[in-house]
């Protein structure tokens, strides 16, 4: 079995886990939630193994490099970080409903990586521009940031659902974490994401400067990552303004994640130089 096959199976695991989390939320059965946690744990272990196997395979092919060099590999890494961060949150806050909002994102990312005809899952040799340690730092930090923002997005959706239900009538929402916990969690995720997005943009600039002699050239991918950064910087400051708690911050967090998605996928539709675009 090669790493691509292993990772296809992991996609399936994440799909099951997502369904279990959602079922546990809807039917309020402890056993469903517990099994979901186990499936996610297994999935994350398999995901880790998949990344390592892929790394080893690239060396066996004689073109050894960290598995962070194209769209397929970055999506796999993204899902991995997302699930790791989620597992930490689940343990810390002892609440599995967040899983119903976080695991589907990892599942979709993996499914897209495995199934989309536009994405090549073969291990390819690195073209000269990608041969840089800055690239590895760049990809890792960007995707740590993106994963945190993805969870912040899920939590913001939960926040909006929960606060729309002022009198706590909706039975679907009773087991959600308290509204101020959701607000705090969203903020935590945004801070974590902001730090790593900043480092991601910075390492990307340093890499660009060592490869092309320019730390910033306003190509669409760079610009969109900066737009994302502006949106989350807005969120950090909007908290300081009276009346900008909760709902509006959740809303900015959602807009921020849409900007992340555009930086990641949408930019490929625009003209630019970034090598991931191909």
């Amino acid at each position, binding site marked *: 079995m090669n790493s691509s096959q292993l990772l296809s199976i992991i996609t399936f695991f994440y799909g099951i886990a997502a369904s279990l989390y959602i079922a546990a939320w809807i039917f309020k059965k402890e056993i469903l939630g517990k099994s979901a946690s186990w499936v996610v744990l297994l999935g994350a272990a398999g995901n880790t193994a998949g990344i390592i196997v892929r790394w080893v395979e690239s060396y066996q092919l004689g073109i050894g490099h960290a598995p962070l060099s194209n769209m397929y590999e970055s999506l796999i890494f993204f899902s991995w970080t997302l699930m790791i961060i989620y597992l930490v949150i689940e343990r810390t806050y002892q609440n599995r409903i967040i899983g119903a909002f976080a695991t589907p994102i990892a599942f979709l990312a993996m499914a897209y990586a495995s199934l989309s005809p536009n994405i090549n899952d073969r291990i390819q*040799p690195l073209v*000269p521009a990608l041969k840089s340690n800055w690239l590895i730092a760049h990809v890792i930090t960007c995707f740590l940031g993106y994963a945190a923002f993805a969870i912040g997005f899920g939590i913001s959706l939960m926040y909006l659902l929960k606060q729309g239900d002022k009198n706590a009538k909706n039975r679907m929402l009773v087991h959600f974490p308290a509204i101020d916990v959701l607000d705090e969690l969203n903020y935590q995720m945004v801070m974590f994401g902001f*730090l790593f997005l900043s480092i991601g943009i910075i390492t990307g600039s340093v890499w660009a400067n*060592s490869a092309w002699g*320019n730390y910033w050239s306003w190509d669409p991918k760079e*610009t969109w990552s900066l737009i994302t950064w502006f*949106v989350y910087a807005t969120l950090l400051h909007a908290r300081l*303004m009276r009346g900008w708690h909760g709902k509006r911050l959740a809303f900015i967090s959602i807009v921020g994640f849409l900007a992340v998605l555009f930086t990641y996928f949408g930019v490929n539709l625009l003209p630019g130089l970034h090598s991931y675009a191909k």
Partner: protein
Amino acid sequence: MQQVENRSPFEAIWAFFSSVRLTVAILLILAATSIIGTVIPQNENPTDYFNTFGPFLYNLFNVLDIFDMYHSWWFRFLLLSLMLNIVVCSINRISTTWKVVFNENPTFHISRFRSIPEKEEFIDSRRPEELKEEFSSLIRRRFSYTRAETTENGFCIYAEKGRWTRLGVYTVHLSVITLLVGALIGSIFGFEGFVNIPEGETANSIRLRKTNALYPLEFEIRCDDFNVSFYESGSPKEYRSSLTILEGGKPLLQKNIIVNDPLRYKGINFFQSSYGTLPPNEIALKLVGKDTKIEYDQKAVMNKEIDLPEGEGKFVYTDYRNSFPFRGHNLGETAIGILTPKNGNRVDVILPIKFPSFDGMRQGGLIISAAELHHRYYTGLQVTRDPGVWVVYTGFVIMILGCYITFFMSHKRICVEVAKTGKKSKVMVAGTANKNKLGMHAIVRKMAKNLGITNENRL
């Protein structure tokens, strides 16, 4: 905001730039307008723009600098406003923060700690006097500042750490200023250009990208060799140029550069950015007399006339093509020359490398062929100078540190109160932090545990 009339214009501007509301507005405007330049490709040919957008939109966009928007007056104005906003905000607040941070003797109110809901309380069987030493040293181990005070019926220890982390936000803001200043330095004192150097040749000037003007270098740069290698799949593996820096004809520095590993000399950087092939400057000719059958070897340098043997006239090598179509076939790499016979008209001579007998068709006195030859490459170098880079990099480091301090460190304060109850002591542990309150609760619980709380003695 009521006394607007009494303000001087300076005060009014100051007030305008000191609001976080403005920050949010500027950040959102920056985010929104930045999209434009990703949808409309930047710095393209004006005629392409004209054809795409038509005269009206073209003129409008031109006035607004949309085709180079990130360097336009209005985008720069937004960045400048952000910078002013940060500076004014920071100046407004720093004196208050400074007083808090560098207060030698922080005040504390025990009543504030007593009213914290998430405090821990327990009974210790010893009397307060017996606990003081032990508690003080335990707390001192975890907090940088501690102070013990006596209370009505016992004592309390106030401790804190991380006061300086309140400066984290200023660090982040300072980093943004540093970045913008670094970028400004680069755009004023830096340049960006390129130069193509054929193998074996030397350049002493480069061409600037913006103006297309020649820019003389204080030194010379020679390309000794260029190599490109490919993977089996055909995708490029490595571009490598061997470069030598010379001054006054003396070689001073030699380096092989590849993508991601440039050459730097006197503040000017040379990056591997492209390459190409040049016609070989010299080819080896093989000549065979049609009647004599004698073979001759001769060298032909481009555009230099040579005398041919057997009185066949003069030949000059004039051109080299990577492909040469002939009656619907491609002859591949081909050298081209002109033959001037002693008496008669000049004729073109076609010398495909792969077909040595091709020239036989000309029915001349000699059959000329070109032997296989090695390619001459030129290396394409991106040349930059940016004295602001180190300022920008400093900003990068400050930003990472600042964000980390701001987000993940906090000013933590703890108060342990010990009060006598009969022959025993009642101990209270309570703490506050300016960030991450949940984390602070954990620290309080841990401290209570260190001081001896158990499930039995907890109140």
